[in-house]
């Protein structure tokens, strides 16, 4: 699952027990994290989870209350922003309104005292990379949102930083442009080979962009992993809920044998079977979590290890998929989504239909937190 990383690779950026307090409130509460060279790493979380504070500490705008930050072997915890080989792309883009696109991009190189000829060459190169060459003489207010975003990116990239921080890079763009820019960002990252850290609240964005994701909750890291790991093997109800949607069944472990758990769910009046390598004591409290798209919905009985009956209460037609809310006999609502493989005129399941829901033992995960 970690094709992009050699097993013995040394972390490029290392955070050790980083804490940031504002008065009594701990915005970041003991974050330790290893990020590797050329990663596109996402900090994902809701508002107020501490992701932006963490990013600002990496940029040098905030000083950690405790903990150390190492970049490429050097301790940068106390270095001021202007001495770090790190650049940040602001959510507002923070383009200098009194300078042309060209001057904005050249700004960082000028501060470093790069020779004028060299500046001109590298600025042209950076503008080429983001396809803004013809707009070099424009002012920021004469550009569209997408163009401004690209200027901000070029302004950072032209300095060839060791680490690029992006604060909600796509939040200000509309949906169509966002999708396009997302791929563009990934291509550029691959082309320049700089390590990116992206802060976002948008789980879809995090899933499609990143090599790895750190899900944050109340100043702490809830889980770190590749998008697949986070989605398929969430460690807690928080992560499971935050990424995508999921159904929970609370119960107790009844049996554990050969990598398969049997969980008694009193609400359901029946046992559920989950494939899991975890060793759990008989009788311990667990939740069985199943993603909506892993559940099969049918009007006929299903030949699957887990099967329940219910009635369709809600049906959302989203074009490529339909989302069903099925009420079980005990009153619980289960979310199911199914690809619309047939034309809607020959739809199989409709409102108020009595249906069977089923899923494989490998389709669910067991959560203890």
């Amino acid at each position, binding site marked *: 699952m970690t094709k992009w990383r050699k097993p013995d690779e040394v972390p490029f950026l290392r955070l050790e027990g980083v804490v940031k307090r504002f008065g009594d409130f701990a915005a970041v509460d003991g974050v330790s994290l290893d990020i590797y060279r050329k990663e596109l790493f996402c900090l994902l979380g809701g508002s107020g989870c501490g992701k932006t504070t963490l990013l600002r500490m990496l*940029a*040098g*705008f905030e000083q950690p209350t405790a903990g150390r930050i190492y970049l490429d072997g050097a301790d940068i915890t106390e270095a001021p922003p202007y001495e770090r080989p790190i650049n*940040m792309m602001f959510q507002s883009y923070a383009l200098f309104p009194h300078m042309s696109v060209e001057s904005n991009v050249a700004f*960082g190189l000028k501060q470093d005292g790069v020779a004028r000829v060299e500046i001109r060459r590298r600025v042209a190169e950076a503008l080429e990379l983001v396809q803004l060459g013809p707009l070099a003489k424009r002012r920021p207010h004469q550009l569209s949102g997408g163009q401004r975003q690209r200027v901000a990116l070029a302004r950072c990239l032209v*300095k060839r930083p060791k680490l690029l921080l992006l604060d909600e890079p796509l939040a200000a763009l509309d949906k169509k442009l966002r999708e396009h820019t997302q791929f563009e960002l990934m291509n550029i990252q691959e082309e320049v080979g700089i390590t990116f850290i992206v802060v976002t609240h948008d789980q879809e964005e995090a899933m499609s962009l990143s090599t790895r994701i750190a899900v944050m909750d109340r100043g702490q890291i809830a889980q770190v992993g590749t998008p697949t790991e986070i989605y398929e093997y969430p460690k807690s109800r928080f992560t499971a809920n935050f990424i995508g949607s999921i159904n929970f069944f609370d119960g107790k472990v009844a049996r554990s044998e050969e990598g398969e758990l049997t969980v008694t769910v009193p609400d359901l009046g029946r046992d559920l079977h989950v494939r899991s390598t975890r060793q759990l004591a008989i009788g311990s409290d667990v939740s069985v979590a199943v993603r909506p798209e892993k559940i099969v919905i049918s009007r006929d009985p299903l030949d699957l290890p887990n099967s329940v009956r219910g009635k369709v209460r809600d049906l959302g037609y989203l074009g490529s998929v339909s989302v069903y809310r099925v009420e079980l006999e005990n009153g619980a609502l289960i979310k199911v989504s199914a690809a619309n493989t047939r034309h809607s005129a020959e739809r199989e399941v409709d409102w108020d239909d009595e249906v069977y829901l089923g899923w494989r033992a490998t389709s669910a995960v067991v959560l203890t937190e």
Partner: protein
Amino acid sequence: MSGAASEEPSGSGRRRAFWLSGRGLVSSIPYLWLLLFFLLPFAIVLKISLAEPIIAQPPFTPLFGPDGSLQATIDNFLFLLEDSLYIVAYLNSLKIAGISTLLCLLIGYPMAYGIARSPRAIRNILLLLVILPFWTSFLLRVYAWMGILRNNGLINNLLMWLGVIDQPIQMMNSDFAIYIGITYSYLPFMILPLYAALERLSPDLVEAAEDLGCRPWKAFLTITLPLSVPGIIAGSLLVFIPAVGEFVIPSLLGGPDSLMIGRVLWDEFFGNRDWPVASAVAIALLLVLVIPIMLFQRMNLRREGA
């Protein structure tokens, strides 16, 4: 820019509709006010400046003679150029106003910056403190400065009591006292527009500059300062223009040799009762102030258009 222009209402029809609408009526009140209390008096003063002084009531010749002929003269303006007193007074006024404006800027900029960067909760209190002096009479405040700067005033008494000096320092009736008076009185007019400009400036921009390699001082010079230029200009004009024509502060705090144009104007009107020359002095003062501002505006427009 052509896109923006095409969206604006064009044609006299729409313009007429604007002036007749409720919004138009409301915004026409200040225009009416300016017409009545600025443009009309200005026309009267201009008329007087073209007349000749006579001993009569009023003390100047009418614009049209008894036979209906126009009797206008520019002698009064030529007279201003002949007598070096007027030119010296103009230059002295410009110098005093200029230095006072600079002092206001040097003191006001850090204050405005501090207020704009202070926590939101106390920002309004700080602004209120800036305009608090307006709650007492301007005249009283200038008199208070007389009490502070006098030979046996607050500063001299304190320094003598401390033993720093044994002779009082002459501060009253000097240019120094005028600078203090003008800077003190006009400081709020500098701070408020500067505050407005600095408050609008996103802190992201300064952080971005530091992120790109600027030390804080350099970030101030390359980002904050250029972006607050509109505030600097507005504040400087608000201080400079009234300071040039200032009459009360030089009269009360200034010495006999600190001649400012406001004083000359007063002397011509009430001492010499030469209304036409006094009017010419006033008109010339206005031209001295308005022409540079208009040139500046045109330059600005051209720069923005480019």
